[in-house]
């Protein structure tokens, strides 16, 4: 894998930086990391950018992660792009909701960088 472009969607700038740091430290072939503060902002980014992977929080203002995932198929650039949820919401029903909405993976906070990287790796390998 190389030249991977990732979109991180989280209302917490600190969490975006933490995830970005995890991605940079791993040997995942990351070329560019884009950021958005909520689902609506992310849809706007995807209207003019193509990415290979989306990492998304659930609890966000304006548009939450579940609604964002549901609306993704309406964006041409986002068709087939895998989404991994990264969130404090760890109940079974949240996982089911996320996967039913179209998410490909689920990571619960707090997490280790190794966990994030292994989940991302498996999702990206599954895509290829």
């Amino acid at each position, binding site marked *: 894998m190389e030249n991977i472009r990732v979109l991180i969607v989280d209302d*917490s700038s600190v969490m975006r930086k933490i995830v970005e740091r995890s991605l940079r430290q791993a040997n995942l072939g990351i070329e560019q990391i884009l950021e958005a503060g909520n689902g609506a902002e992310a849809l706007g980014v995807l209207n003019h950018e193509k990415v290979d992977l989306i990492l998304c929080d659930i609890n966000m203002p304006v548009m939450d992660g579940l609604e964002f995932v549901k609306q993704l198929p309406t964006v041409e650039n986002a068709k087939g792009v895998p989404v991994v949820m990264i969130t404090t919401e760890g109940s079974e029903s949240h996982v089911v909701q996320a996967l039913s909405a179209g998410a490909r993976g689920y990571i619960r906070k707090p997490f280790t960088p190794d966990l994030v990287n292994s989940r991302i790796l498996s999702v990206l390998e599954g895509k290829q």
Partner: protein
Amino acid sequence: MSTAQRHPIPADARESWAPILELSAREVFSLMLGAELGTISEPQAEQGLNITSMVGLAGSLCGLLSFRCSSKSAVLMASKMLGMDPGSVGDEMLDAAGEVCNMVAGNFKNKISGMGDGCQLSVPTVITGEDYSLRALTNERTIDVRLIFEGCPLVFSINLHN
């Protein structure tokens, strides 16, 4: 937050929540900051805890989870979370305090059986300063957990509404 159904949790079950809150905090610091929290062996002065972050709980558990720390602690937390030099940390310290509170709240509710689905969290709010009084519209006693991070006290509290 309107979708959460209320299933009141027995008051006696809450007696055991202090250790769960402590474990939740320890896990967040261990996994996200690579830091082990110490135990307070004797009462410590809590002056200087000038950063308070709060996350509201709604649904099967109503109330407020708050986290108090000093600016020095918040800078160190941001530094460890983001891999930054402490001297270059700015507003990130407030975001870090809010995110720690958010993760502790999420971790806490996920550890209580039956809570994950029925309890929802607000986005975190962070306030600075010590000269204030906090009145949450709760009517049960507060659960407090005091721990040490890099030599400085941290206080995690839950105010519950019956």
